[in-house]
């Protein structure tokens, strides 16, 4: 429609059908002064999906985002858009647009001028700019009269929306989000997460989001990639990640889990160094002879007379915490600490100090090798 420098890549992106691979990261590595920050990342982002990269701080997620935006380049490997390599293109020649962590709103401009900036840069006519800016204000649920408001006088949540509207105004195929919700209080964050998810559906753009909160990632995304120390550990839908974590790291990242090392004893049967002398029923995949089993606190059951479970252990109750509708117990079995979660109705209020039996079924535990 309007001639701009990123026309070529934008066209490439537009020709790809929804659900087809849009961005392809091939063996991407990035070194900073010989320190390997990104190690051989392979990743495909599909068109129109909400993809989230999640990882603890220092895992390299911002570096990957910057390489996607064109503010950094891979040391080796390639970033491919459709079939065109874009690794060396500058930011203004890519079909991407970034929403920054601290938003990077232009403080000397009004809300309207901020949103119009990318359109004016493209050379759009003034009345078209205003009309589109008004539309975008409506899209991000900001009142019309905010058009003339000083952007520095907006609240945190409002600024967030202005930043997103500005990115949408650029009308690029891909919008990149650099933890934009990290500085916002918990309640407002939930609202904005819902809005963002909704906005993704309505705008029909491809969203690539990074965050350190897996909870946030699972809440909004179609697919999630878990990053650790520069390596991509697992990619999948939120359900896949939750139900089938591939490693201890991924499982621990999701939340409280109990992890026991486990191996086949020379005398036969599975044993664990955490519980000497006890045998367990385990469902390994393949012929692995050692690994770890992951048991979620809510998969553990309180063992009473007549309860049928595959594995039972005896623990002492150290502490009890209320989570509202559920209660969490901190237990000890020998030196091993275990976390148990029960619905409120099952809770014995005076259990601290007592010894109880807990257990789990083999198919509720997840077996991983690393």
């Amino acid at each position, binding site marked *: 429609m309007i001639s*701009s*420098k*990123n026309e070529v890549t934008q066209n490439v992106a537009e020709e790809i059908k929804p659900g087809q691979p849009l961005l392809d990261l091939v063996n991407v590595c990035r070194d900073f002064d010989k320190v390997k920050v990104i190690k051989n990342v392979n990743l495909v982002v599909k068109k129109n999906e909400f993809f989230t990269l999640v990882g603890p701080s220092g895992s390299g997620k911002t570096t990957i985002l910057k390489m996607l*935006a*064109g*503010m950094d380049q891979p040391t080796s490997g390639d970033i491919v858009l459709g079939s065109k390599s874009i690794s060396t293109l*500058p*930011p*203004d020649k890519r079909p*991407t*647009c*970034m929403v*920054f962590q*601290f938003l*990077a709103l*232009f*403080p*000397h401009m009004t809300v309207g001028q901020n949103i119009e*900036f*990318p359109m004016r*840069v*493209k050379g759009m006519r003034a009345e078209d700019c205003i009309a589109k800016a008004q539309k975008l204000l409506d899209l991000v649920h900001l009142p019309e009269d905010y058009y003339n408001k000083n952007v520095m006088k907006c609240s945190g949540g409002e600024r967030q929306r202005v930043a997103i509207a*500005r*990115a949408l105004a*650029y009308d690029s195929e891909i919008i990149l989000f650099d933890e934009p919700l990290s500085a916002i209080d918990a309640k407002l964050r939930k609202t904005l997460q819902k809005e963002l998810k909704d906005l993704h559906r309505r705008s029909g753009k491809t969203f690539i989001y990074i965050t350190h909160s897996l909870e946030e990632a699972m809440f909004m995304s179609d697919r999630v990639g878990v990053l650790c120390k520069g390596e991509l550990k697992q990619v999948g839908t939120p359900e896949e990640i939750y139900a089938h974590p591939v490693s201890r790291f991924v499982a621990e990242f999701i939340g409280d889990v109990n992890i026991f090392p486990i191996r086949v004893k020379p005398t036969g049967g599975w044993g664990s160094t955490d519980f000497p002398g006890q045998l367990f029923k385990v469902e390994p995949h393949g012929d692995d002879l050692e690994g770890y089993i992951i048991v979620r606190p809510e998969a553990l059951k309180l063992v009473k007379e007549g309860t049928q479970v595959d594995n039972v252990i005896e623990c002492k109750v150290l502490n009890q915490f209320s989570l509202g509708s559920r209660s969490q117990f901190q237990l000890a079995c020998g030196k091993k600490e275990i976390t148990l979660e029960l619905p409120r109705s099952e809770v014995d209020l005076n259990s601290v100090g007592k010894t109880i039996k807990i257990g789990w079924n083999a198919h509720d535990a997840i077996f991983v090798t690393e």
Partner: protein
Amino acid sequence: MTKFSVQKIKSSLTEFISSKGGKCALPVYILLTLGFVAPLFMVLGFSFATPRSFSAFTSFSLDNFIQIFDGSTSVWRSFLWSIALAAFVTAILAVVCYPVAVGMVRIFGSKTSTFISILFVFPLFVSENVRLYGWILFFGKNGVLDGICKLLGFHGPDILFTPGMTAMGLAYSYLPYMLFPVIMGVALVPKDLITAARDLGSSRLRTWWQIELPLAMPGVLIGMLLTFVLATGSMSESKILGGQSIIVITNDIDVSFTFSQNWPQGAALAVVLTLIIGSLTLYAFKKIDLDKLMGRS
């Protein structure tokens, strides 16, 4: 009515003295009252005295001011020279210093930048006469430039003691006064904003013009104000490098006080100069928040 306002002044004075900031500001206020306000008041008094008298506040006359503007003297030309030179030098220095400031803030590492700042601060500590004299040795007959030209087989240019040389001297003397405020200004611009604008498709030139420059403007303005004011009130450059090829206003003031012994005349000139500089400074100060510029930037 009067009683009420006296009380009001009294209460605001008490408030001033009882606040910690007011107490701390007091020594500075005393110094500036005795060393800045009172002397300027004396100058004002002299400017209204009868020409060629040596006491203020005993006579009243507007002759000194009338003389400046009625065209009987050429002093208006000195004013024009001073202001034109200062404006020219300010513009040149803004252009010269901006790229250096960008380099200091964004390109050189913090250690190199500190070292370069020290290199730029240092000349301020050497008497400007000494530094200006170095230019005479450079441009003068048998000087460094002339010597190099002779080695190459032709005569060096004879540009010493011209208005252009005065302008160069002013640019030379006041470069640090432009550079440091501009550095502060450029440092005010978050790097994210530049990246964001580029990411939104804006060209380098446009990003500079619409994002970086407006946000760095407070620093640039302070720098321009400082250089303009100091250059308007400068004297050594035109005397040493300009060789009196042009007379600047401070020179006229100096002559009135020393050679021609007409203190009221000099005082009137000083008052007009102060009015020009003061109104400009006060206008600029109104627009600039110093806390923001100097604080955690």
